[in-house]
Structure formats: C-alpha cells, structure tokens
C-alpha cells in the first residue's frame, strides 16, 4: 500500500513520457492501483458535484429494557449516493452512522440465510434482496414480521416457528437401508419433484403473511412448515409417508389453510407454498 502511494506522488510530478518506466519497475498490483489512483483523481471533482439524494425511512423501534414504553416509529434519512442498493445496506448504514442501538438480524447479505426477513412497505421480504425505492418523495416504512412477538426493534420471536418445524420431523425416516450399504438411490424424475421445495430457507415471510396463521399460530402449522412437510411427503427416499399424513389428520394443522395465497405472493425466493399445501390436501383426500 505504501509503495503505491509514494509512486503516485512521484508520478504526479513526472511527465507522461516516463510513466511506462515507472510501471514496469513497480509490482504488478502496485501498477494497477497507481493507474486506478490517477483515474479517480480526475473524476472526484465530478462526483462531488452530485447533490445528495436523501431518502426517508421510518423504522419500528421498541426497547425491552423499558417494557412500559410503547413501540414507536423513528425517522431516518440516508443519502442514496453513499449507500448500496438494497434495504439491508441502508439499515446497516443507519446503524453504523446514526443510531447504533437499532437491532435487526442479518447474516449472508445475499438472500440465502433468511435472517433479515422483515416487513418493508407492507410486504414481507428479505431486506438484503429488497431494493430501496429511489422515489425520494416517498418514505419507506420498515416493520418487523407481522403478528409476531418482538424481542427488540426489528427482531421477531421465532421460537414457536422453529418448534413447529421440529414437530414435523424434517429428516429422512427409513425402516431399512440398501443392502450394499451405499446411498439410498433416487431416480432423476423423483429428484425433480423436490425442485421448488428444498430451496426454502425458513425465513418465515410466508407464514407471517398468512392471516390464518395470525389467528391460529399455536395450532396451524403455516405455509413454510407445510411446504417442508410436502417436501418430505414427496421425497421417494422417505418411508414414513403414512405417519406424516397421519400427523396432519386433524382440523387445525393443515386445514386452517383457506387458500388466501398471501404466502406464494410474498415468498422472497419465488417458491409456491400455496401449491404445495393444495398438493398435500389432494394426497390426503385420495
């Protein structure tokens, strides 16, 4: 780093003719950064002339250390020129620069872990996949996932959700294994049946968008869990299909679904829990 900076200061005082000699003598990496250094030096005045694009955010805040206080919306303003394109970039920037007490879950920043699920402008999505609406006249409203108990600010309490996931036994159940002791084989057609089911990252966006799940959270399993039940029902390697179906034989676990279809509409990964639930209902009836 130091080598490239000194060569930059030397280069700025040297005429263009001797530049190739400097570049051949310095390291390859150093040469590239000196050229890049020169490039930004000329374009910086042009960037500074851009006026800041201030976007307004309203973010839900609640502190459990003051349990008697009511939740409130706090206003923030972020310059979009200094911020990445996604909502998560803006929220992290707010936490870094404006209010360090803002609390939220995040991990992969690429839409694969499912940690940053929240309600942005009325839709449940992942903050890392939701682009900031560049219309500066509108305020973006950020809430935690709806109808969930809140641990703090934007962090929902997902323990019930995980308990429901555990209850469907989301693992391969077999009575016998192949005689040669090798893999349980599956045909290509049977593997295709799992497409659209295994990609679920359990972000809870769909379940928390379902009004039926809001009103019956303790007994109705919800679209996310039912999608995973279907994933195990349709897996040809699994031999506990009858037990899995038996577990759904009551009025609440599966049949609280009234095909509202908010789940498929809101899934940030583009999956279709509503269709999976319909397939389960069909297989239960036949």
């Amino acid at each position, binding site marked *: 780093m130091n080598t490239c900076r000194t060569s930059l200061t030397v280069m700025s005082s040297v005429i263009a003719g001797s530049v190739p000699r400097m570049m051949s003598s310095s390291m390859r990496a150093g040469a590239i950064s000196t050229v890049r250094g020169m490039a930004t030096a000329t374009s910086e005045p042009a960037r500074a002339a851009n006026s800041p694009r201030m976007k307004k955010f309203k973010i839900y805040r609640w502190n459990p250390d003051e*349990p008697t206080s009511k939740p409130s919306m706090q206003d923030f303003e972020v310059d979009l020129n200094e911020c990445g394109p996604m909502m998560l970039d803006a929220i992290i920037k707010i936490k870094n620069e404006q209010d360090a007490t803002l609390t939220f879950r995040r991990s992969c920043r690429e839409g694969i872990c499912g940690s940053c699920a929240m309600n942005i402008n009325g839709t449940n999505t992942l903050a890392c996949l939701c682009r900031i609406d560049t219309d500066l006249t509108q305020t973006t409203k950020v809430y935690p996932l709806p109808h969930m108990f809140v641990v703090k600010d934007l962090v929902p309490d997902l323990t019930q959700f995980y308990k429901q996931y555990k209850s469907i036994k989301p693992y391969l159940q077999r009575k016998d294994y192949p005689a040669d002791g090798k893999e349980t084989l599956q045909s290509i057609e049977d593997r295709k049946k799992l497409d659209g089911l295994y990609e679920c990252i359990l972000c809870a966006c769909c379940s928390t968008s379902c009004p039926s799940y809001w009103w019956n959270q303790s007994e109705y399993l919800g679209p996310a869990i039912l999608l995973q039940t279907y994933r195990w029902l349709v897996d040809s390697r699994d031999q506990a299909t009858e037990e899995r179906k038996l577990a759904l034989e009551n009025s609440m676990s599966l049949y609280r679904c009234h095909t509202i279809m908010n789940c498929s509409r809101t899934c940030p990964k583009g999956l279709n829990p509503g269709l999976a639930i319909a397939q389960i209902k069909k297989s239960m009836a036949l």
Partner: protein
Amino acid sequence: MVVKRAGRLTGLQRDVLSLYRSCLRAIRKKPPESKRNFLIFTRRQFHQHIDISKSDFTTIEYLLRKGHHQLETYSNDGVRNIAV
C-alpha cells in the same frame, strides 16, 4: 405490581404468582449449593418490575411470557448454577 387486597386477586396477579411458584418448584430441583443463587436471581427479576401499574396489561403479559421463556431455559438439568 403490588398486591394490596390479597383476598381478591385478579387473573393477571394469579398468573404472576403461579409463575413465581413454578420458579420456586424448579429451584427445589437445583443442586443444594446453588439454590440460594437461583432464589436471589428469581426474586430480583420479579422485584425489578414491582412498580408497574396493575392495569398495564401489555407490559405484564410481555414480562410473563419472558418469565416463562427464562424458566423453560433455566429449569434444564444442565444449568447447575447462576451468577448473582
């Protein structure tokens, strides 16, 4: 939430007392040398919020939920002591 007329308890007050009783029952199962630590911790947790108005249902219900969560975690047999 201070209980003044101990004769007539409201539903919420009964829930709080029932939680306290469950905590005491869980403490009885802890190893003898750390029982006192658990007792101090429990009493401290309840005493912290003694000044909440008895009509502030949302706060009391939130604290009851939090208390039940903590009880579920701490009543695990693996938890043998607590720092006070």
